[in-house]
Each structure stands twice: as structure tokens, then as C-alpha cells.
């Protein structure tokens, strides 16, 4: 199957690929494609500023947070009386007294669209948690349908952490703000581990020169697609018809051993010949030590 995919991808590359195969990775990073950064909370900065990767070639160790010890200040700052700590996920959970209103059939809903949730959550963070550097990621909305009507039950607005001007990928560090149908913030989750520079391997690191050719990127996409598809619904013989990079960003990826390493992060949309598509996040490390000879 890999051979088939390679042939398909090669054909795509030669004739009709939406991937710009003559460009290298730095082209993708520097504005050729749309960033998958989706929003900023820090006034005065724009995406171009963020994409100028000024950070170093340093790796960091991920250390358990001290957020449990900040219980009193978080309760005060967020004006929420209930505090819980999920030790397994290292997450602080703050709840208002009306948290369960998110899970009752609402008598009325003052929220009519998901953008309102985003606005409320951003204001909440800027006012109550200004020291936490995050950007907007997504909004998840639960709707409820009874025989009488369909309405919004609640929403959760997801923010991801910014660290050294890159985004923290995965569920390593985030803030989630839950809001009920009346527009009240009822629940906040904060995952905020500490990052400590790993000094002992600094001398061995060397930044990659950003010249990974797009053909290499294609092979990465192919491998990733093959790996996913072989495990997905048994549809392991559905070839790609095309693939395109739909987003890019500087980011940090959690390696095994709780190491945070800088990466270029791409979202690749793969279109299958059967009309289905999938989005695949591919993270390519900045540091040379992770690249094959």
C-alpha cells in the first residue's frame, strides 16, 4: 500500500499537487500558507510577529506545576468558590456555585452563537488570569433538543499556551473556560506545568537549517497517512487523491521523557479518492539531532 501511496503522491507532485513541492519548509513557515494559529490575546502583536521564530534551540523539561498551591489566589482572582485538583492530569479546576446549570435543561438561553462564548471567555481571561499567556484555539458547543425546541446548552472555549512565542501542542498546557447558556462562566480548567531548560545537552544541539524539501514533507505525509489509514476502519486501500498544507505554526512538542522540543507544525489535509478527507498534524523538529543523516 505504501508503494501505491507513493505513486499517487509522486503523480500528485508532478502534475497537480496543491503542495508547493519546489518550496522548502521555511517557505511554508513564513507566510506561504495560512497559519493554524487561530487567534491572539496579547494586544499589539500580530501573526507575522509571532511567526518570526526568535526562540533558541533549547529544549525544556516538563515539570509538574505548582498550581495546586495557588488555590487561594485562583479562587480569589476567578471569583469561584470551588477548587479541585486533578493530579493525574495536573489540572486545576475552578467551579462556580452554578456550575451544574450547564447540565440542566435550560429554561432560556441568552447565547445564540458560538462566537459569544469566545468573547466572554477572552474577557474573563484578560480580566482574571492576565499572567497566563494563551491564545484562542477552539470552541465546543453542546446543543440540546427537546420536543419543543433546540437550544444551546453550554460551551467550552479552549485556549492553548504560548511559550517562547510558539504554541504548546497537544494537551500539555491549556486553559478551558466553560460557560452556561446564560453566558455565565461556570468552570475553568488550568493546566500549567513548569518548563525548565535542559542545560546539559545544549551544546549538542544545532538548529536545523530549514531546508527540508517539500518532497521530504510529502514522504512524511505519506508515512503518516499510511500509518493512520492502516488502522482506520479497515480502509487501508483507499489512496489519496490529493493533499495540501492548510496550516503551519511554530510550536513545542512533548517528547517521550517529558521533554519539550521546538517544532514546525503543519496541518495537512489529505483527500481520499472516495471523497473523504482527514486532517493530519505533522510536527517536524527544529533541532538537527532529530533529523536523519
Amino acid at each position, binding site marked *: 500500500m505504501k508503494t501505491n501511496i507513493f505513486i499517487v503522491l509522486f503523480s500528485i507532485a508532478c502534475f497537480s499537487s496543491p503542495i508547493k513541492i519546489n518550496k522548502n519548509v521555511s517557505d511554508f513557515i513564513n507566510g506561504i500558507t495560512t497559519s493554524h494559529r487561530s487567534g491572539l490575546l496579547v494586544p499589539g502583536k500580530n501573526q507575522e510577529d509571532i511567526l518570526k521564530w526568535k526562540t533558541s534551540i533549547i529544549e525544556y523539561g516538563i515539570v509538574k506545576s505548582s498550581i495546586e498551591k495557588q488555590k487561594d489566589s485562583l479562587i480569589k482572582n476567578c471569583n469561584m468558590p470551588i477548587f479541585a485538583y486533578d493530579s493525574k492530569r495536573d489540572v486545576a479546576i475552578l467551579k462556580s456555585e452554578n456550575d451544574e446549570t450547564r447540565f440542566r435543561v435550560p*429554561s432560556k438561553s441568552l447565547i445564540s452563537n458560538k462566537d459569544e462564548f469566545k468573547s466572554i471567555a477572552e474577557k474573563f481571561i484578560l480580566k482574571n488570569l492576565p499572567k497566563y499567556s494563551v491564545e484562542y484555539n477552539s470552541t465546543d458547543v453542546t446543543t440540546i433538543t427537546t420536543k419543543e425546541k433546540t437550544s444551546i446548552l453550554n460551551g467550552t472555549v479552549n485556549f492553548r499556551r504560548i511559550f517562547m512565542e510558539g504554541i504548546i501542542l497537544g494537551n500539555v498546557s491549556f486553559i478551558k473556560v466553560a460557560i452556561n447558556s446564560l453566558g455565565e462562566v461556570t468552570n475553568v480548567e488550568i493546566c500549567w506545568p513548569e518548563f525548565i531548560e535542559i542545560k546539559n545537552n545544549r551544546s549538542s544541539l544545532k538548529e536545523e537549517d530549514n531546508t527540508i524539501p517539500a518532497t521530504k514533507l510529502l514522504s512524511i505525509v505519506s508515512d503518516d497517512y499510511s500509518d493512520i489509514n492502516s488502522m482506520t476502519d*479497515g480502509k487501508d486501500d483507499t489512496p489519496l487523491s490529493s493533499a495540501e498544507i492548510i496550516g503551519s505554526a511554530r510550536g513545542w512538542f512533548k*517528547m*517521550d*521523557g517529558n521533554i519539550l522540543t521546538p517544532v514546525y507544525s503543519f496541518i495537512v489535509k489529505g483527500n481520499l479518492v472516495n471523497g473523504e478527507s482527514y*486532517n493530519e498534524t505533522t510536527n517536524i523538529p527544529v533541532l538537527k539531532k532529530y*533529523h536523519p543523516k
Partner: protein
Amino acid sequence: MRFKILLVLSAAFSCFGWGSFGSPQYFWTGAWLSTYSGVSCSSDDLPRATAHKAKFLNALSSGASANGRSYLLQLNYENSTMTYASFASTDKNSCDVVFWTGHGDEGSGKLLSNDCYHERYFPFGGSYTKWVFLEACHFFQYNKNPWSYDDSLMNGAHCVYSFASNYKWFKHQTGSWWCCTFGGCKCFSYSDDRWTYMWERFFSGNYNLWGAYSSAMGDSHAEGGYGVEVAAVTLYGTLQDDNGHTEYNYLFACPTKDWAYEGLIYPGSNPDGYLNAAFLDEVFGTPSY
């Protein structure tokens, strides 16, 4: 603690009387699974179904045990024994939790049994059944209500959790080629982890069951790079306990760990026409249908 149903549910359950068997101590379970290997009516095998079921049961067992609850796998059907009769005709009264992993069908409310019955007339619950999990693609119709399904849908169950889109199985390499080389080969995420996430969150006490279910499914699919639409049909009503505390418009899909109101529905109750049923759904990313 003893409870009684107050108002709204009475329309649906008036002919059955009050449920009053208190907070259940049980997580007795029935499980149905098929990988459809060699089954002619199935276009796709589901090779990871076995791992999904194992994670579901293991995480449930661990969580129940850690919280002093009783877990027992009462009914267990796999592959050749996962027949239509095994589901439709087996008494599920002994099962608080029902788990099915197999094929659904484009929002029709149908399931495919291993003996090729493609039916929507599955009675999902039993007298004591509270929660039904149907890990089946696109079981619910997108943006539709549950009342178009057959009345036997719940059969006394409190809620049915499933999907209103396709869902994905995966073993996903999270960091591309370099991760395995340099990361100790642990850079994988597995779709079966969703069930561990769900039960851990529920038993942590910080999530109610719908919150645990939806967030776990959302996180799992994000790990695989997929979107998903999760959904549930649930009973709801206004309840009062013996201390006079009233819960207005309580959604039975959302019990917390102490599940104080989960003992309320009388065994054998079967709402007529789902007068007091609601449909919950949440979309993560861009699902396929």
C-alpha cells in the same frame, strides 16, 4: 438515601410508580463486540474493537473498585456469539451499563450484528440499565431528534450515548518519523484510550458522565487528527430527594460520581413516545458523515 420522582417524569412513568431503590452500588455490565472478521455482510473489519472493549471494561472496573462500587461483567458476547438474538432477546436487567462496539449505519439508528441482522429494533436497556454506550458509527442522525427511532430504543435505560457522525479507530504516530526514532517509540496515541479518559474523568469526581464522555471523545479524536460529533439521548425531569432538595430539569445523561439521582427510575419503566427525552450533541473539529 431514598428518592422519589416529583413532577415532570410522572407523565412518562405514572403507570409504573416511584423508583426508590436508592443510590446504586453497582456497575454490573454487559458487553457486545464484533470485529466482523470473515463476516460477509460487513464491508469493513474493525480490528481495534477488541482493544476498545478491553479499555472500556478495564477502566470501568478500576474506577468502580477504587470508589467502593461493585463491578461485574454479567453478559459478554464476542464475534460469533454477538448475534441479534444475543442483544435483542437477552434480559439486560442485571446490567447497569451496556456496551456495544460494532457497525452503525448512516444515522438510521440501526446496528449490524455479527450474524448480519441490520436492525433498528434493539431494546437497549433493561429494568436496571442506566447507561448504554453504542460505539457505532453515525448511529444518530445528524441534527435530528431521537423520536424518529423506534419506541423500544431505550427500554428503561436512562440514556444512550453514541455518535452522530463517523468515529475513527486509530493507532496514531503523534510525532512523525522522527518521534519513534528519537522518542523511545512511545509517540503513539490509541483510539481505545478514549474509554480510559472517560472513566478516569468520571471517577475523579470532577466531571459528570456526559462531560466525561464528550470531552474524552473530543480529546481522543483530536489526538488522531479527526473530528467527531458525539451525541446522547437522555431522559430528563424534575426530582426531589427525601431531604426536600429539588433538582429542576435534571438530565439523566449527566450524573456525577455519587450519582445521587440515578436510582430514581422504576424498574421496567419505558417512556411512551419519549415525552421527556432530550437529545444532546457536540461537534469537535470536522467530522465525516
